[in-house]
């Protein structure tokens, strides 16, 4: 039986080129400089070290829900006409209902050790907010969550759970922060919620802003998924030539897929295809540009090199709030640019239909976000993959049943961005040197 990994595995030593440096916004000279991240998280983001020991306190917390199950989804294979085996790695079996707890626990541990008393964050669908609330409860930190208001209204029980865990939950836009007043609720709702959290944390002593996805260290923490999966597939004597995960900013995809790249690079073998499944309403990897863009709505953070549809683009509402982010993580973006990551866009209807089929045949209810990965896996298993497909089901869908209700009632639709709207949103962004335009 596969054991819980004791180390996270970084792909940084195996990149063919270094990650592009962040660009800082122009600032006036003067004033002191503070350290805005625990040192270990900085080291994990920069140092090209392959293995990082998981702290004992985090391992103890992981043991309550890890290793997570991996199985061959024969019923789903049959339902989608698969020509090769489909293996599923399921991350929904913890209190947050998603993979987000893997990094929330690690971050809460490191921030606590750094002397922080309160963590503040923004969340879309609420999985990250729930995960952070749970991690803060475990490590004795206060927690404040700015959740996209439309998502909170749609899934009020997310708010209840976070409050049960001791967090303060605020519906964004709150109207109480400068950024929410200035944007008047327009633009990207998740980046606005994050922006509100950034502003709130900056003004409160003992508080720190933290983020669940996109940062290189959060992808490292999520590598526990892929490291486990590699061992579990070996135990089953199974072989896959495609690994699929859904992409909001990239931590779930990075977690399942990038350890396979590291494993192949270390062994001098050919890696499987790493396929990022994104929402067709936020098609940064398939229709975006590789450019320097903001990570949140405040405009105070660094500009990061990312595939983006533009931080100013107003993303249409959808049931996959976890995928409603304008850019992909700089690590995932760099690997996409280097040709090491493939991407496909999936419509909401196709995603939820894949989720419905999976529920019926595997008796596990996936989140709408995970439905995008399942749909992409179904495509590959029917045509493209030669030996097998591994797909990560990033979370459960028990708080997303309204979306499945709409699917059953035939009321679900899709809103892919118009080409002119995308062009307008990225027109002023500086392209990354050497990037195709």
């Amino acid at each position, binding site marked *: 039986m596969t054991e819980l990994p004791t180390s996270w595995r970084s792909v940084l030593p195996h990149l063919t080129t270094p990650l592009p440096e962040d660009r*800082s916004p122009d600032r006036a000279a003067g004033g002191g*400089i503070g350290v*805005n991240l625990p*040192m270990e998280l900085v080291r994990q983001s920069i140092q090209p070290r392959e293995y990082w020991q998981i702290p004992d306190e985090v391992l103890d917390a992981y043991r309550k829900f890890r290793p997570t199950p991996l199985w061959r989804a024969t019923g789903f294979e049959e339902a989608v006409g698969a020509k090769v085996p489909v293996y599923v790695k399921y991350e929904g079996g913890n209190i947050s209902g998603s993979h987000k707890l893997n990094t929330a626990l690690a971050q809460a541990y490191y921030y606590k050790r*750094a002397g922080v008393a309160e963590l503040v964050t923004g969340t879309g669908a609420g999985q990250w907010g729930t995960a952070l609330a749970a991690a803060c409860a475990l490590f004795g930190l206060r927690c404040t969550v700015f959740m996209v208001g439309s998502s909170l209204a749609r899934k009020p029980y997310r708010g209840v759970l976070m409050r049960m865990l001791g967090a303060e939950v605020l519906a964004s836009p709150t109207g109480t922060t400068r950024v929410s007043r200035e944007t008047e609720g327009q633009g990207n709702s998740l980046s606005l919620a994050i922006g509100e959290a950034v502003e709130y944390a900056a003004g409160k002593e003992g508080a720190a802003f933290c983020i669940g996805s996109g940062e290189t260290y959060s992808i490292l923490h999520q590598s526990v998924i892929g490291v486990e999966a590699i061992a579990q597939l070996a135990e089953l004597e199974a072989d896959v030539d495609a690994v699929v995960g859904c992409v909001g900013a990239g931590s779930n995809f990075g977690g399942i897929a990038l350890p396979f790249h590291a494993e192949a690079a270390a062994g001098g073998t050919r890696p499987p295809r790493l396929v990022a499944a994104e929402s067709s309403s936020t098609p940064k990897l398939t229709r975006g540009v590789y450019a320097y863009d903001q990570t949140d709505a405040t405009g105070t953070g660094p500009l990061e090199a990312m595939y983006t549809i533009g931080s100013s683009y107003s993303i249409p509402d959808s049931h996959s709030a976890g995928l409603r982010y304008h850019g992909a993580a700089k690590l995932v973006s760099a690997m996409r640019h280097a040709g090491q990551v493939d991407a496909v866009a999936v419509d909401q209807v196709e995603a939820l239909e894949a989720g419905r089929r999976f529920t019926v045949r595997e008796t596990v209810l996936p989140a709408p976000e995970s439905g995008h990965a399942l749909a992409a896996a179904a495509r590959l298993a029917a045509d493209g993959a030669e030996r097998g497909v591994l797909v990560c089901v990033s979370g459960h869908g028990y708080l997303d049943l309204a979306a499945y209700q709409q699917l059953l009632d035939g009321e679900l639709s899709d809103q892919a961005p118009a080409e002119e709207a995308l062009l307008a949103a990225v027109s002023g962004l500086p392209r990354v040197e050497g990037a195709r335009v």
Partner: protein
Amino acid sequence: MSVEALDRVTVTRAVKTVVIAESRLSIDPDAVSGDEPLNGELLRVNSFGFVGMLVRLEDDLGVTLPDDLFVGRTFTTVDDLVAVVLDAVEAAR
């Protein structure tokens, strides 16, 4: 470089070298005084580059800076940074 070999002169030079590089300058470290502001007319270190610079200092000098740098502490001059590295060197001995 062993921690035992790290004295104030060595640490100061290492700190000046990294802040000069972070500021995208090509000047002699001796041209930077200890009371030079990190984010001023000459040096242009900002909070985003600062943490990465700390890790480079750790790598260059073989020391580990403490986690509690995070809380309630701001760095204004080159000497502020030298002091925290010297504290880490002392703790490692």
